[in-house]
């Protein structure tokens, strides 16, 4: 059996080895992130059959839990680490050709650190360790947002850093309060003892943790940094931030609510918060003229949908939410990667300058179209089964409230469709100025990851059974906290 520690240790070690490889050859640096992520992808996929039977608990230092820092590679952790490795691998191939200027070795190092932090967050079983990995993720993403060094990038990075630093301070206060109450940092051990103290004293750390982690997860009203940061970063980083970083934030919120606190009384609040995030995100996206800002606001909307689905907290709802995370990671990464070279060719982020792209860059435009259709939820793309599951979960509640709420969610989807179809119309049907025989397709290193993402979106959309096993057991890990506690503490 492969030890899940390698999922964190190998990319972390390689990240710090990148400057050393630079001594051998400057060209070697950029091939390190794909190698590390390919390794992670293979290890995660090979762990899936084992964790479907029972979670793998790794105790570091030889002490039994709860006295050690432990890694819990359950279905949720391995599912997320596989998504992170997959998207990270594809985006790092894209970056081989896309990142040419500036301090490239720092880019690749920070990129690998960001993914290491994300993998650490989803695998750890210790709440302070979660905070540390979260900080690795956040600090590298602050620096990467500012990578281009232009006015917009620096300004957004400053905004992101101030809000993120407040968030991490709140998380740390929450962790300190939990330690003061329970004398332990192990999430399973806290979860076991959570009912032994009065609900009021648990409420304050819960609020602090949700607020702090929610800033990184961009839950409304904590999402002010997101549109700036995602639109000013290099496109490969936007793809990672949208496709991975905010999902990891949502994972942390879900883990805290479902497993650590078992706070079933705030599920309805989560549903309403998700709906609000969805509507605010989609309505703001509708009025955007900048293509990357449009995609960033659409990410907020999708995050709202995920939170909504997780808040339903039935088996169908959580499966739908996790499925939506997969669908959003693949589709939004594809959209940002496709848009990256369109912006590169036109030199502007304005949607109106994209007209005629369907003829200039046919493959990239096709990729954008598939990603957009998938996010809107059209069959046969991966967005369809995930949205379908969420609607089904809400209707299965058989309450009038949820029927009304899901109607509002579908209204949000209609808005989403409206703005995406407007962009697609610009791509294909407005190109009168450009002569049709002028082709400027993206380079091959960008087309390979775009192509793989397109194939994955269609394949998973047609055969959702490929992922249902791992999704079902991941949902039951989140919903069944007694099982999680028993799995970790024995």
């Amino acid at each position, binding site marked *: 059996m492969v030890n899940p520690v390698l999922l964190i240790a190998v990319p972390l070690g390689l990240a710090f080895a990148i400057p050393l490889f630079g001594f051998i050859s400057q060209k070697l640096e950029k091939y390190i992130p794909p190698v590390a992520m390919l390794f992670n992808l293979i290890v995660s996929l090979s762990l899936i059959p084992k964790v479907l039977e029972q979670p793998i608990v790794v105790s570091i230092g030889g002490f039994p839990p709860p006295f050690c820092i432990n890694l819990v590679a359950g279905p949720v952790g391995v599912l997320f680490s596989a998504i992170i490795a997959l998207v990270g691998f594809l985006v790092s191939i894209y970056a081989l050709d896309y990142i040419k200027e500036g301090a490239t070795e720092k880019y690749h190092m920070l990129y690998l650190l960001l993914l290491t932090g994300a993998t650490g967050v989803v695998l750890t079983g210790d709440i302070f360790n979660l905070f540390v990995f979260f900080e690795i993720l956040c600090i590298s993403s602050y620096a990467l947002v500012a990578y281009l060094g232009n006015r917009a990038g620096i300004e957004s990075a400053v905004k992101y850093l101030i809000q993120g630093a*407040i968030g991490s301070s709140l998380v740390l206060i929450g962790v300190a309060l939990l*330690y003061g109450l329970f004398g332990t940092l192990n999430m399973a051990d806290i979860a076991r003892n959570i009912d032994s103290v009065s609900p009021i004293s648990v409420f304050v750390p819960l609020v602090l943790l949700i607020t702090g982690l929610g800033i990184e997860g961009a839950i409304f009203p904590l999402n002010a940094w997101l549109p*700036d940061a995602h639109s000013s970063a290099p496109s490969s980083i936007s793809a990672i931030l949208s496709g991975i970083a905010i999902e990891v934030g949502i994972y942390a919120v879900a883990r805290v609510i479902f497993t650590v606190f078992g706070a079933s009384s705030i599920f309805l609040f989560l549903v309403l918060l998700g709906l609000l995030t969805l509507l605010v995100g989609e309505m703001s996206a509708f009025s955007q003229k900048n293509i990357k800002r449009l995609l960033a606001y659409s990410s907020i909307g999708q995050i709202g949908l995920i939170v909504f689905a997780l808040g339903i907290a039935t088996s169908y709802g959580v499966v739908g939410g996790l499925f939506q995370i997969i669908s959003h990671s693949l589709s939004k990464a594809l959209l940002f990667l496709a848009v990256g070279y369109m912006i590169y060719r036109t030199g502007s982020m304005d949607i109106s300058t994209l007209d005629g792209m369907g003829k200039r860059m046919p493959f990239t435009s096709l990729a954008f179209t598939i990603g957009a259709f998938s996010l809107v939820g059209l069959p046969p793309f991966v967005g369809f089964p995930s949205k379908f599951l969420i609607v089904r979960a809400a209707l299965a509640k058989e309450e009038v409230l949820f029927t009304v709420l899901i109607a509002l969610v579908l209204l949000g989807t209609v808005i989403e469709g409206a703005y995406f179809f407007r962009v697609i119309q610009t791509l294909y049907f407005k190109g009168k100025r450009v002569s049709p025989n002028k082709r400027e397709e993206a380079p091959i290193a960008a087309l390979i990851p775009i192509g793989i993402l397109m194939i994955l979106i269609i394949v998973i959309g047609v055969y959702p059974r490929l992922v249902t096993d791992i999704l079902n057991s991941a949902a039951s890990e989140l919903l069944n906290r007694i099982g999680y506690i028993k799995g970790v503490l024995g």
Partner: protein
Amino acid sequence: MSFLNHYIYYIGAFGLIFIGLYIVLVKHNLIKVIIGLSIMETGVNLFLISIGYIKGGTAPIFSTPEIEAARMVDPVPQALVLTAIVIGVAVLALALSLAIRLYQHYGTLNLRKIKEQRW
């Protein structure tokens, strides 16, 4: 006065946290905002330390046989604080280097005047 004796560290810690938060929310100058973040972090670190503190307690090392475990200061929060300080230094360094770049681009550190990115 016994109230103060018991809770003085907690009062101090939360005082620092709220002072820091106030500075971050109210001040316009980026350097002052960064100072606010730093004060807030110091408050959080003080809070972590005071959770494990015992008045007159010793270091958790069994150097002589008569030391009993109940009189020892909890070492875990101190380890946490060390980590948190290192993270704080990284954030602070990044924030200050961003502040330099921001000044190069805009010629000002007043955050109210830097408004190119809007909703």
